[in-house]
C-alpha cells in the first residue's frame, strides 16, 4: 500500500516537473511579458478580435446581410452606430463579422507556414546533403517570387477566391523564410554537444529533432510567425483592393476598406474609418505582441 501511494506521489511530482520543464524559457518569457503594458494591450485586442471572429453573435444581433437598400450610406446614428454601407447593410455588424475572414486568413496561413516551414527547415538542416539541396532550391524559387506578385499569379489561377484559397496562396508563398530560419537554427543546433550526447545515448532522429533541436530552434520562428500574422491581415486587405482577394458577398475588412476608401472624400468617411481602425488595431496588436515576444525570448536583450 505505502509503495503504491509513494509511486502515485512521485508520478504526481514528475507531472509537475513536466509542466515546469516546458515552461522553462517560456515561463521566463511569460513573466517578462506580463510586465509589459504594450504586450498586455496587444493580447487584449487579439482576444477581443478573436472572439468577434469566433462568436460574432456575442457582439451583435444584427444580420450583416439584411440590407434595406433605402438606408444606403447612412452616417452613424443610434440605430446604426457605425452607419450603413451603400446597400444599407449595418456597418457595425459587418465590421464584427468581417473579423472572421481576417483572423482565419491570418491564423491558418501562419500555422500552415509555420508547419511547412518548420518541417522543411528541419529536414533540410538535419539531413543535409541532397535533401538540403533540393529543399533549398525549392525554397529559393518561392522565396524569390515577390510575395504580392506571387499571390497575384497564384490566385489568378484559381477559379474562385475564398478565405481558403487565400490561405493556400499565403501558405504556398510564405513558408520559405520560415524554412530558412528553422534550417539555420537547426544547423546551429544539430552539432551542439548536447545533441551529440543524446545521439550517443542512442536517441532516435525523431527524438533528436523534436526534443533537442526544435525547442532550441523554435523561438526565432515563433517570433517571425507572430509578425506574419499581422502581415497577412494587411495582405488580405491589399489583395481585396487589387480585386483578386476575397469577393463580396463575403464580408471582410479588406473588402470593406477597399470599397469604402473611394467614399472618403464624398462625405462618407465612416465607410473607411471603421474597418480600417479595426484592421490596423489588429495588425498593430499582432506586430507589437511579436515584438514583445522577441524581446522576452531573447535573453540578450533582457
Amino acid at each position, binding site marked *: 500500500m505505502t509503495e503504491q501511494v509513494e*509511486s502515485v506521489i*512521485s*508520478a504526481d*511530482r*514528475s507531472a509537475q*516537473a513536466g509542466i*515546469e*520543464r516546458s515552461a*522553462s*524559457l517560456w515561463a521566463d518569457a511569460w513573466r517578462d511579458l506580463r510586465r509589459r503594458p504594450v504586450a498586455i494591450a496587444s493580447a487584449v485586442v487579439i482576444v477581443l478580435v478573436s472572439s468577434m471572429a469566433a462568436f460574432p453573435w456575442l457582439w451583435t444581433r444584427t444580420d450583416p446581410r439584411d440590407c434595406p437598400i433605402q438606408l444606403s450610406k447612412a452616417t452613424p446614428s443610434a440605430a446604426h452606430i457605425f452607419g450603413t454601407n451603400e446597400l444599407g447593410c449595418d456597418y457595425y455588424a459587418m465590421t464584427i463579422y468581417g473579423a472572421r475572414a481576417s483572423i482565419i486568413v491570418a491564423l491558418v496561413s501562419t500555422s500552415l507556414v509555420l508547419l511547412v516551414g518548420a518541417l522543411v527547415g528541419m529536414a533540410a538542416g538535419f539531413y543535409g546533403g541532397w535533401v538540403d539541396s533540393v529543399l533549398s532550391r525549392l525554397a529559393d524559387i518561392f522565396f524569390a517570387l515577390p510575395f504580392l506578385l506571387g499571390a497575384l499569379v497564384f490566385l489568378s489561377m484559381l477559379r474562385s477566391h475564398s478565405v481558403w484559397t487565400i490561405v493556400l496562396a499565403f501558405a504556398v508563398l510564405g513558408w520559405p523564410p520560415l524554412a530558412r530560419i528553422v534550417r539555420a537554427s537547426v544547423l546551429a543546433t544539430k552539432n*551542439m*554537444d*548536447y*545533441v*551529440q*550526447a*543524446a*545521439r*550517443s*545515448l*542512442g*536517441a*532516435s532522429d525523431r*527524438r533528436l529533432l523534436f526534443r*533537442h533541436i526544435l*525547442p*532550441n530552434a523554435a523561438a526565432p520562428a515563433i517570433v517571425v510567425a507572430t509578425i506574419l500574422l499581422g502581415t497577412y491581415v494587411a495582405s488580405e486587405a491589399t489583395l481585396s483592393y487589387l480585386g483578386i482577394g476575397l469577393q463580396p458577398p463575403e464580408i471582410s475588412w479588406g473588402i470593406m476598406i477597399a470599397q469604402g476608401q473611394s467614399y472618403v472624400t464624398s462625405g462618407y468617411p465612416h465607410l473607411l474609418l471603421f474597418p480600417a481602425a479595426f484592421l490596423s488595431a489588429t495588425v498593430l496588436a499582432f506586430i507589437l505582441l511579436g515584438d514583445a515576444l522577441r524581446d522576452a525570448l531573447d535573453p540578450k536583450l533582457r
Partner: protein
Amino acid sequence: MSDVVLEVRDLTKHFPLTKGIVFKRQVGAVRAVDGVNLTLRRGETLGVVGESGCGKSTLAKLIIGLEKPTSGEILVQGQNLARMRGSALRRARRNIQLVMQDPYTSLNPRMTVGDIVGEPFQIHPEVAPRSDRRRRVGELLELVGLSPDHINRYPHQFSGGQRQRIGIARALALRPEIIVCDEPVSALDLSIQAQVINLLERLQEELGLSYIFIAHDLSVVRHISDRVAVMYLGKIIETGVDTEIYDHPTHPYAQALLSAVPVPDPTLRGLRDQIILEGDVPSPANPPSGCRFRTRCWKAREVCVEQEPALVEREGSAHPSACHFAEERDVVHATD
C-alpha cells in the same frame, strides 16, 4: 582475456575529399583514423594522448558509435559494434557511454537536470520502469555528488564543475561498463579538474568502470591512466602502461611530446632536454609514406620512407612502439 571489455581492431575512418561544382567526385580522403588497435580491460583506464588533429576525437566518436568506421571492428563483449544497426546497436550502446568536453554545451539548456539525467531511461525504457526513474535519477545525482533536490533546476543554474558532474551522471545512468571521456576536464578550472578526476576515479572503484580517457593534457592522463596510447596522424605509435610511456618513451614523437610537459618539481626544471619538433604536422589527407613521423624525425633514414614500422615490442623498447629505431631516451626525469 575474459576481462577485456573492449577491443578495437584495425579501425579506420576516412573522410572523403570531393571536388567539382555540380558532380562531386572523390579526389582523396582525410585519414583521420588509420588502423588503430586497442584493448581495454575491466576496471582499467586507457589514456589516449596526442596533438590536436591527430584523430583522438574521431576515435572517440567511432567507439561511441557517433561515426561509422570505414573499416575495422569494435568489439564490445565479443559483439562488433561497427556492424550493428537498429535496436541491436541501441542496446549495445547502453554499455558504452560518453562524457563530453564542454559542460556548457553538452547539456540541453531547455531541459531540467532531472530530464537530462533521466533521458537515457526514456531512450532505453527497458532499463528502468517509469515509476522508478525519478528515484534512479536522484541516486545518480547523489552518486556524482549533487543534491537530488536540484532535479528541477536548469543547467545554467550550475557551475562548470557541477555541470560536468551532471554529464557524468547522465553517462552512468545506463550502468555502462565503458565510459569514453573526451577531454572531460580541459574546459574546467584547474581546481575543479582535480575534483572531477577524483570523482571519476572514485566511480571507477565503486562501479568497476573502464575508461578510455582522451586528453591532450599529458599530466592529467598520467594521473588517471593505467595504460597510455600515443596517437600521431591517425595511428597509435606507442602504447604501454603509464610508467613505461612516461618514464621510458621509445618513439621519437612520444619523446618529443613528453618533453613538453611542464615539470611540477621546480628542482628538476632545466634538467631535461626539451625536444623542439620542426615543421608542421603533415596533412592527414596526404600522409607521408612509410613512417608518418619521418618528416619531422631527427632519426629518419631510408627505411623510414620505404617501410611503415609496426606497433610491436622491439629491441630498444619493452612495450609496443612504432619506430624502426625505437630506443629509450630519458626526457622526463621526474618520477611519480
